[in-house]
């Protein structure tokens, strides 16, 4: 475990904890951003440049901003904490959170344990040069996974058109 890993892990965990415990919603969002950025740092630390940078671009650049906008455009930004203050409510929330976390962790652990890279000799993992890794991603996306990629593209386009239509419908109402 290297020092950089330690720092990044602490940053990620600290951010995540802060995101749960801070009182102001906007602070929570900012803390979440820190956690996401820490995660990106972990990817980079592992040599996965593309994934790490995409993580920053998408999560810090877009998702965080989206959440921030959502917070701003609703009343939430002003209300310090809308959490159910009753004891029972708090308990059930906690239990739900723990259960979700455990489930996610279990799935991830299962995937990691069964992944073929883990069974392969360690040397092949580290020997892949980043440039090759990036080309591999490109090749994989354009050759082997071209159909899923296209399907996803289609789906996103459909979503985009749907969003446009939803936005357009507002106009006659306003006038």
């Amino acid at each position, binding site marked *: 475990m290297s020092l950089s890993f330690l720092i990044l892990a602490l940053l990620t965990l600290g951010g995540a904890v802060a995101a749960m415990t801070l009182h*102001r919603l906007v602070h929570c969002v900012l803390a979440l951003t820190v956690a996401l950025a820490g995660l990106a740092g972990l990817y980079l630390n592992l040599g996965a440049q593309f994934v790490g940078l995409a993580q920053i671009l998408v999560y810090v650049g877009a998702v965080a901003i989206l959440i921030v906008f959502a917070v701003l455009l609703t*009343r939430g*930004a*002003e209300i*310090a904490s809308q959490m159910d203050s009753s004891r029972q409510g708090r308990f059930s929330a906690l239990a739900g959170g723990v259960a979700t976390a455990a489930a996610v962790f279990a799935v991830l652990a299962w995937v990691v344990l069964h992944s073929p890279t883990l069974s392969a000799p360690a040397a092949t993992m580290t020997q892949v040069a980043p440039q090759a890794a990036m080309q591999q991603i490109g090749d994989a996306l354009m050759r082997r996974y071209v159909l899923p990629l296209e399907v996803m593209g289609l789906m996103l386009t459909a979503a985009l058109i749907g969003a446009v239509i939803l936005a357009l419908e507002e106009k006659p*109402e*306003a006038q």
Partner: protein
Amino acid sequence: MSAMVTRVVLEEEESARGVEGELLEISMGPHHPSTHGVFRMDVRLDGERVTRLKPVFGYLHRNHEKIAEKASYLAAIPYTDRLDYLCSMTNNWGYALAVEKLAGIPVPERAEYIRVITAELTRLQNHASLIGFLLQDMGASGTPLMYAFREREKILDLFESLTGARMMCNYMRFGGVRVDCSSEWLEAAQNIASSFPQFLDEYEQLLTGNEILMARTQGVGALSAELAVNAGITGPMLRASGVNYDLRKVDRYGIYDRFTFRVPLGDHGDVYDRYMIRLLEMRESVKILEQALAAIPEGPIIDPKTRLRGLRPKAGEAYGRIEGPKGELGFFLISDGSTNPYRYKVRPPSMINLTVLEDMCLGRNVADVVVILGSVDIVMGEVDR
């Protein structure tokens, strides 16, 4: 609790207008970079769309009318300079015209010509700098304004050499003007008149065809001719709405009936029309200047029989009005036969043109409000008096 935006309870009027969501109430001014002085607008925003706008003025109230009622007819003239402090010449003229009407004072020919020349020069510098200010409000980092000021400087220099002051000219008197202009001065005025079209071409090259300017101004702040007439709007703003009403043509005060010039009229009444009308009016003003400078006769500049000090007009009332650069500038005087007017009232075009601000701004966004306000051409000194 962080009340980051003032949440406003939906009022009935808003819900009647079909406004949904939360409203942001902003007080634009009195210390805001583009309110042209100390002027405040209580703006209620839905997003960035204006749902209500209340102009609040009076911050610069200086008791102008009451002061003039306590001062002699002569002593009121320097105060008129300070109404619309960009156009002291036309302010002087409006007041002088009212007193002349009240007391029946004739004006010598040469004085009339000088009045026309100085008034048209005033119009030139006022319109040029207004367009500069308008563009400044649009965010053009001062370039058009500086070009306008470059030209304005020449006109102000001319005023200084004639009257001793650049802006507070205090030049016209009932019965004429204060000092005579030399032939060199007339030559300098001729130079300005002949070089001004070139400047206007430059100005138009920089601005008129600019897509951003057109996009920002066309269709923005449209004012219908009907509303304009009903609200008493005058000046370039009225003519931009397509109403042919120019006091220089309607009243033919002074000697304006001797000059041939045209009155440009707009069809849309939006900010772009107001901008263009002012540009076209400047070209017409140059024509008037050329004619006046060519025809100016020799002679006295002030009616010798008029007593400036201690003027006591017969009891009565008079309303003198002129076509100022901003619109109809009128002075209403009631005399009770004493040395100071019993009642003195100004009809300030800036203020009356400002009354339709809300009508022009509703449904537009903040950026438009600033531009629309800029296109009205207000000077707070005149609005608040």
